[in-house]
Every structure is written in C-alpha cells, then in structure tokens.
C-alpha cells in the first residue's frame, strides 16, 4: 500500500477532531499500554481501538499495519515462548521433559502460560504501534504543527516534526523509483540470492543518499525563499478549536482508560 505511514484524507470523526485531543489520546494510551500487562485488559483495549478504527473508516489501514508487523509480532511471541520453555510454570502444560547435560538437570516445559505471555507482549507492542498510527492516519502534518504550537512547543521543533512526516512519503517514493530504475537497466533484485539482494539494495542506497541530500538542499533553499526565521514571532492563518466531538472522544478515552486499569487489577496474572 503506497500510503503506508501517511495521513489518509477522509472525513471521519477522527479526522475532524482537534489534533490536541488526538495527542492526548496518544500520550494516555502509550502510557497505558506500557504499564498494563493483563491479557483481559489489553483485549478490552483492543476492542475499544477496533471500534474507533471501524467507526472512523481506517480499519483497512490498521489491517494493513497488522500485516506489515506480523513478523515482528510473531518474533516477540516466539521469543517469550522459547524463554518461557526453560521455566516451569504452574498450570496446564503441553509438553514437559527433564534432561541432564554434563551432570546438571534441566526441565523443558512448554506451558500454556508461555503462549499467554507471548500473546500479551505481542498485543502490547501492536497496541503501542497502532496508537501512533491511528494519530498519523487521521492528522496531517500541518495539523500536527498547529497542535504542537498551541501547546507552546517551539516552532522549530514543531516544524521539524511536521517536516519529517512530509518527507517520509517522499523518501519511500524515491527509494521505489530508484529500485525500479536500477532493475530496468539490468540490476537483478528479484531472482537472486539473499546475499546478492542485500548487495544490490546497498548499491541503490547511494543514489538515494544523493536524492535525499538534494531534497534537503532544496528544502533549505525554500525555507530561505519563504523567509523562515525561528527567532521571529510567527502568525497563523488557521486556528484550531475543540468541538463537542472532542468532548465525546475525550470521555471515551477516560472511560476506556479507567476500565482498562480496573480490568488490569482484576485479571492480572504476574508474568
């Protein structure tokens, strides 16, 4: 999907929210997913998120995100599964065997609890990423800058953050075009060994570097043409203000946060 990691233009309730409301949502949910380790609480949060995604018509983009990070999530699950296999946990197990190496006794124990642990950590990571992505999908970089400025973040910082989100899609597009251009003149990037593929990807990094440097140069020239001076007070054409939608979304955020915390304490199993 070409618009991965980019703002998607549409007219959903999430898009109409004040960017500051979405920033608050991002901060609260990031903190929450960093601390909550209860599977039930995380599952509840996932359901809340899913409802938000579906009602704001960004479900297919989140599904796309899930497909992109599935290897990472699988790796996290497997990692906890493997680490857990060398610890005997109480509760049902799938396979357990004792063995001796050099006179030392060990137990290999594949418990259901290890699966639970792997799933919890994978879900936490996915929720963390998806919170960020939810905001990015529904907030364009101009709104990000406006929102940050209204929180008195220095304009140089706000502009820098906005610029990153403006440039990321450009760099992705440049990379794709360079790969196409090189393969068009004979560089094999499809049917070749993994080592050759890596080598060829390194080869294209040079034109990409030059293009990115060129873009950076052009952007700095444009900043000069537009008389951008971070020391000067800047005014604004657009103003942002909260509406009743922000109040509703804020209430949903508070209720789901409290509910998640309650569920966390009710169903917490030490990991």
């Amino acid at each position, binding site marked *: *999907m070409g618009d991965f990691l980019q*703002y998607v*233009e549409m007219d959903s309730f999430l898009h109409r929210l004040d960017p500051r409301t979405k920033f608050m949502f991002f901060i609260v949910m990031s903190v929450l997913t960093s601390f909550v380790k209860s599977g039930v609480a995380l599952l509840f949060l996932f359901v809340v998120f899913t409802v938000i995604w579906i009602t704001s018509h960004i479900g297919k983009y989140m599904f796309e995100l899930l497909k992109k990070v599935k290897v990472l999530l699988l790796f996290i699950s497997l990692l906890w599964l493997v680490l857990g296999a060398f610890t005997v946990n109480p509760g049902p197990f799938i396979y357990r065997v004792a063995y001796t190496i050099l006179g030392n006794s060990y137990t290999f124990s594949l418990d259901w609890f290890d699966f639970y642990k792997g799933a919890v950590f994978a879900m936490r990571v996915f929720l963390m990423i998806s919170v960020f992505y939810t905001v990015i999908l529904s907030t*364009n*970089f*101009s*709104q990000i800058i406006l929102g940050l400025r209204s929180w008195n973040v220095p304009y140089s910082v706000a502009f820098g953050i906005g*610029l990153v989100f*403006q440039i990321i*899609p*450009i760099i992705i597009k*440049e990379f794709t*075009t*360079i790969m*196409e*251009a*090189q*393969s*068009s*003149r*004979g*560089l*094999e*990037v*499809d*049917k070749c060994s993994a080592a050759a593929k890596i080598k060829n990807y390194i*080869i*294209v990094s*040079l*034109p990409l570097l*030059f*293009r990115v440097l*060129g*873009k950076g140069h*052009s*952007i*700095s*020239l*444009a*900043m*000069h*043409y*537009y*008389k*951008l*001076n971070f020391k*000067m*007070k*800047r*005014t*604004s*054409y*657009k*103003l942002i203000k909260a509406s009743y939608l922000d109040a509703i979304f804020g209430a949903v955020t508070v209720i789901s946060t409290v509910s998640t915390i309650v569920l966390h304490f009710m169903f917490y199993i030490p990991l």
Partner: protein
Amino acid sequence: MSFIVNGISYKYSPESKLVLKDVSFEVKEGQVTAIVGPSGCGKSTLVSILSGVIPTLINRGVYEGSFDVQEKINISVVSQTPENQLFGYGVEDAISFGIENMGLGTDEIIERVEYVLDLLNIQHLRKRSVATLSGGQRQAVCIASVLAMRPDILIMDEPVSSLDPNGKDMIQYVLNQLRESGQTTVIVDNNLAWFSDIVDHVIGLIDGKVVFDGDKNEFYDDFEIQEKLGVTIPQEVEIYREISKKVKGLNKFYSIDEAKLEIGRLIGKKDDGTQNNIHLLKTEEILVAEGLCKSFQDGFRALIDVDAGFEKGKVISILGQNGSGKTTFVKHLNGLLRPTKGTVKYKGIETSGKTVAQISKDIILVFQHPEHMLFEETVYQELTFCARAQGIEFKEEEALSILRDYDLLEYKDELPVNLSMGQKHLLTILSVLLSSAEVIILDEPTLGMDLHQKNTLEDIIKRFISQGKTMIIISHEIPLVFKITDQILILNDGIKLAHDSKQVLANRSDIFESINIDLPPVVILSKHFGFSQICSDTNSFVQEVIHRLA
C-alpha cells in the same frame, strides 16, 4: 524603479574558477526578463545571488560586485520542483506559509490568500491537498504562495520543465495575469518557446559572461546569438530565421498567423490541399502489447485494452497529457508492472515469466530523472554499467570512443552526479549503447537539456536506429517529437486514441485538439499552404518553401 546587477563576479571557493564574470544588467520594474544560456553557463548561480542564497546560505565563495536593491526589497523564487518548495499539507496551508513567517495579522493573511487565489484563478483548489494536485496546479500554488508575500521581484527557475501541455497552459495563463498586474518577473529558462509571448527583455549568458542584453525583438533578430546560446525558440521564429537566410526582403513574423501572412506573400495562395501521405515501409513488429489492461488496488483503471505493435528500427513517440497512462504503459513493456489483463510479447514470446533485469537484456527503460539511475563512482563505470550488469563484453576503446563522441571524455573519472543535468541525462542514455537491448524506451529524455544537448540527443537516437534498435520515446516536446519520430501512439485516460505514422496523424488535428496538444507550427503551416507532403521539421519546411518559390 529598477534593479541593477553591477559587475558581479563569483567563484564557489578561492581555488575554483569563476562561475560569473563581471555580470551587469538591469531588471526593469513591471517587465518580464528572461535569463537564457546553455547548461552550466552560471544561470543557477545568478539566481542564488539575486535571491540572496549567496552569500546568506552559501558564504564560502568569493563574491565581487553588487546587486543594487534597497534593503527592504523582497525577492522570491519559484523553483522547477514545487514539491520541494511547498510546506503544508493543504493548498491553503502552503499558500499561507510564507506570509505567516512574515508575522502578519490573521486578517491580512486571509486577505492575501484570497487575493492570490483570485489572481491566479485557483479558488477551486483551495481545499485540496498538495499531494493530489497535478504538476501545473502545484506550480501555480507555488507561485501563489510566493506572490502572497508580495515580492518586488519574482524569479522563476525553469518553471515548466517537467510539466505537460496542460500544465504549461496553466502557467502561461498565470504569467499573463502577473504581467497585467505589473509584477516584475525574471524567468530563468533556456526554452523560450513557451513564454515568448510574455517576455520583454532577454539576458544571455555564456560561460559566466553576459553576451546579450536587449529586448525580445532584438534577440529574435540576432540569429548568431540564438544559436550560440543554445536557446529553444518558438518554431515560427526558427522558420523565419531559416527562410530569411535564403530569401531577401521577408518581413519578420513571430506567430503562426503572421507566418501565414508573410510566407503567403512569398509563395502565393495555398494549393488545393491534396497531400501525399508517405507510406513508410512496414517492418517486423519486435514488441507487441495485446489488450493491456491495468487496474490498481484503489480501483483506478490506468490502462484500458491497449493494443500496440512496435516495429523494428523505428522511432515511436507516445503522446498524452499527464495521467494518460504513458508511463504505466511503458512500465508494462519492460516488466516493472504486470497487466491485470493482456500480454506483452517480445519477438513473439511473452515476457511475463521474466524479471525486469532479464527483460532489460532486450528492452531497457531509461527513467526521467538521471539521479535515480546514477550511482557508480566514475562516468566511465556508469557508461559501462548496463553492459556489465548484463554480462555483455565490450572493449575499453569502444567505451572511451563513445565518451569522446559526446564530449564526456574529459569527465571520465569524475563522479557522475557532478555533471550538469543535461550531461547526466545524456550519460544515462549513452549507457544503453553498450547493452544488448534491442528496444530502448526513453521517458522525457530532454529534461534539463539545452538546445545543443537536444541536438546531441537526436544524434544518439540516430545512432541507435542505425544499429537496428527500436526507440520508444515519451515526450511533451511536440516539435521535437515530430522531427525525430516515425510513428506516434496517443493515449488519453488509459485508452489508445491513435497509433499511426506522423504523416497520417498530422492530418488528424481533431485527435490533437481532443487531448489539448498543439500540432507543431511546421505541420499547421504545411497544411495551410497545401504542401504536397506535411513537413515535420523546420528544414524540410524551408526546403518546401524554397521549392515553391522556384
């Protein structure tokens, strides 16, 4: 009020050579001034000095002379790539960016945004995101964003170089509006053809020196300087230049209507208009696209049932506005895109099972921007890249001789990215010479080239054809297309409108009108005067006029 450039000399470091040498001229208020000159003559450095980039941002050079303007004079630049210049997600965000930086009150910002939206007639774009605009619309928004800052001088650096005919029309309209509003404008572009109606004053630079400073008519009268500067001039002016070399007493003409009048005086009324179509010998179709359809994930249908056969040893141009499916079509020919339906056959065999690199042994696509292709450490290595990637043997002497033929030998050990834009483009095209490919596709090959380099490109194309290769060219330079092409394929909204010889299509002005592309003046005039065959370049047209006179 005027703005005076006073004896400016500049070099980028104390050790390097002078890029500008005692440059002096005057930019007159309310006029459109063109700065022209061949690739590498110092135009970009001059823009950097006029806009204050030198010495504000680039301050290590050696700078003499002065640009005499008052301190509060505001000078802004519109670059050739608006996507690098527009800050903001939406059109309103991008337009207001500069005036927000000036610290103006909200009411004044709103007033200025409305003013430029009205002036350039782009109110309908205001709620759009910049990313969804066409090239011409983006450039118009870029001009609006700069105009909102009320610059005393507006500098435009090759503003239409990557635009299609619709985009050029839009910028021409914008420039006319600016001229009427009394905006002082400087256009840096070696292609005078698209803005010849608007320009008042021409400054010519060669090797960092001013070699011409005069009004437009003086420039068009000075044939020698036009050729030295490598400026692409309107074909009507070129026709006048060439005929007047051979016929005494010809009155000047700068437009098609004037040409009809003046040439008509020479050769009389038009004939009855029976034209003989030249039927070119048909050759074997080396590459065939059958029923190509392409639908993208979002449902957009980029190609709809396109059939096309490409004959061996011919030059075929693909015409159409941006978004007509030209690039999508050629990306199917070399396997970068796979069709939703239909097939591509090279020498009768489907290419579907091959990778792009495997197909490149037969069909090579040279991309529009050379920076996407250049990555070797030296010009020599870059030239031989295709051959090495394809495992084709070549002799060093052969490669060096190619560099020598096209004036690149002195740069053979240079980093390719240090070449001028036109040279980089030539190098990427030349690198195909040593490959085994029989079909060569060039996407907008004239980007960044001056007239001298365009002539070199014509030579390279002839060289390919003499080797029996087939050339497929995407270009918006219609006079050049008619000059070098055997056949034309016209696409519109993903549908093939026509595919025939240029002689046949020259008679189908209805098709060209439907896609808003003007036929070249030589074609229009040939038809007007009822020549026995439609001319496709200035030389053949002049020959025909002389023949009629005799």
